[in-house]
């Protein structure tokens, strides 16, 4: 097959309407950046799922980050993604302007270096992410323990992908008001850690196909094509287009590190609610490295008109929400999806703040 054949097939598709969900914020960005929706037939809808760990993070987590950063003797570090997210009153960037000790880094290991250089300061990392990033936190703390460092901590807000997928799948099964998702583009780099076979159980129990894809536009259109074929022939296989990176059972070394440092627990997903065992927390051995990550859930009161839950679960597009682009913008976010530039609404807004005529 060539890319032209795949594109032609997708543009001219006239079969039953299908809805395909991608659950990774990076896939959402790639689809928008590539203008990929404009390449598809009207009968194929791409839906963004809850794959933005930053925007499903509770307000109370940001507030705790700010509180730590304002504490004398404490320095807080974060990925760039987190800096602009508002807690109940302000973001980390705004707190920095008021004197909070916070800076963004490329790698959590920069914090290890800082901790070694400044032994009298407590260095805390705002540890968000999915399974792609968790092994890095595990390795970081293993190294900290080996070096006997006591002035480094994590404030965790980790989410795991499979429980969120189950919530989406069981929702579409049990509640007939929600639109079905016929297939999933599985996140390429999460899958590098957890393996392609991690999706087998969900594929079997809910009879839905999954395709693991990378992040180039070619990967995504190939994945959509592959899922289309499966859906229309009634198959529900887990296939892998990213074999250069994703192995059947993932990265065993990374999984081992995760299991040595973390244990599962419940988490509140802003906009969805609590999902059982959808997070990872530091286990007893590493408890001293925890900056207070438990019980940081809260449900901020959002406008009754906010449709975040439907956006995160893939029932509507961001532009279908009555608040999108008017009452709800990144500067005045009403709900989780608009909170960051990586949530579904935030991404749509970034690429098209006004409701476009033809974009889907």
């Amino acid at each position: 097959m060539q890319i032209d054949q795949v594109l032609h097939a997708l543009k001219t598709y006239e079969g039953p309407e299908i809805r395909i969900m991608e659950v990774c914020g990076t896939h959402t960005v790639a689809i928008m950046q590539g203008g990929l929706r404009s390449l598809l037939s009207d009968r194929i809808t791409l839906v963004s799922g809850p794959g933005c760990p930053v925007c499903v993070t509770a307000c109370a987590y940001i507030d705790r980050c700010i509180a730590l950063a304002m504490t004398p003797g404490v320095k807080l570090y974060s990925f760039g993604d987190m800096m602009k997210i508002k807690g109940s009153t302000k973001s980390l960037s705004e707190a920095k302007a008021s004197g909070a000790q916070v800076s963004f880094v490329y790698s959590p290991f920069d914090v290890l270096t800082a901790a070694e250089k400044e032994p009298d300061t407590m260095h805390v990392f705002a540890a968000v992410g999915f399974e792609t990033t968790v092994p890095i936190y595990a390795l970081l703390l293993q190294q900290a323990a080996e070096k006997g460092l006591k002035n480094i901590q994590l404030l965790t807000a980790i989410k795991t992908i499979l429980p969120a997928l189950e919530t989406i799948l069981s929702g579409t099964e049990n509640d007939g008001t929600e639109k079905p998702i016929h297939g999933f583009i599985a996140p390429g780099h999460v899958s590098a850690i957890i393996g392609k076979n991690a999706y087998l159980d969900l594929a079997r129990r809910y009879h839905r196909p999954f395709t693991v894809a990378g992040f180039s536009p070619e990967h995504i259109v190939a994945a959509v094509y592959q899922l289309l074929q499966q859906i229309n022939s009634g198959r529900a296989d887990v296939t892998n287009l990213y074999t250069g990176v994703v192995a059947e059972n993932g990265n065993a070394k990374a999984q081992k590190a995760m299991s040595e440092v973390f244990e599962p627990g419940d988490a509140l997903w802003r906009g969805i609610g609590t999902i059982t065992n959808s997070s990872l927390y530091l286990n007893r051995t590493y408890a001293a490295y925890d900056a207070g990550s438990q019980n940081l859930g809260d449900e901020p009161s959002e406008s009754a008109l906010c449709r975040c839950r439907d956006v995160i679960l893939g029932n509507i597009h961001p532009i279908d929400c009555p608040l999108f682009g008017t009452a709800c913008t990144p500067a005045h976010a009403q709900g989780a999806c608009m909170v960051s530039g990586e949530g579904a609404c935030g991404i749509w807004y970034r690429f098209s703040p006004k409701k476009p005529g033809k974009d889907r």
Partner: protein
Amino acid sequence: MCVAVPGKITEIIGSIANVDFHGNTVRVQLGLVQATVGDYVLVHAGCAIEVMKSGQAEELLTLFDELDAIMAPEKNDAN
């Protein structure tokens, strides 16, 4: 949650590698993979999370071959 990019290991010192990305050199942790100088690794937030079979360009070239392989019914991955 998935911004990661492949680069080539040019030097290893202990458990840290210098990885080259088309002229950018980044210090990368190797604790999650088994890799040697010359390998391509997928790097996320300063840490190698997987050893790749080849660079990004080569990987894209084989993408549609892989699609063909998946599409052929007798080679489908079974549940």
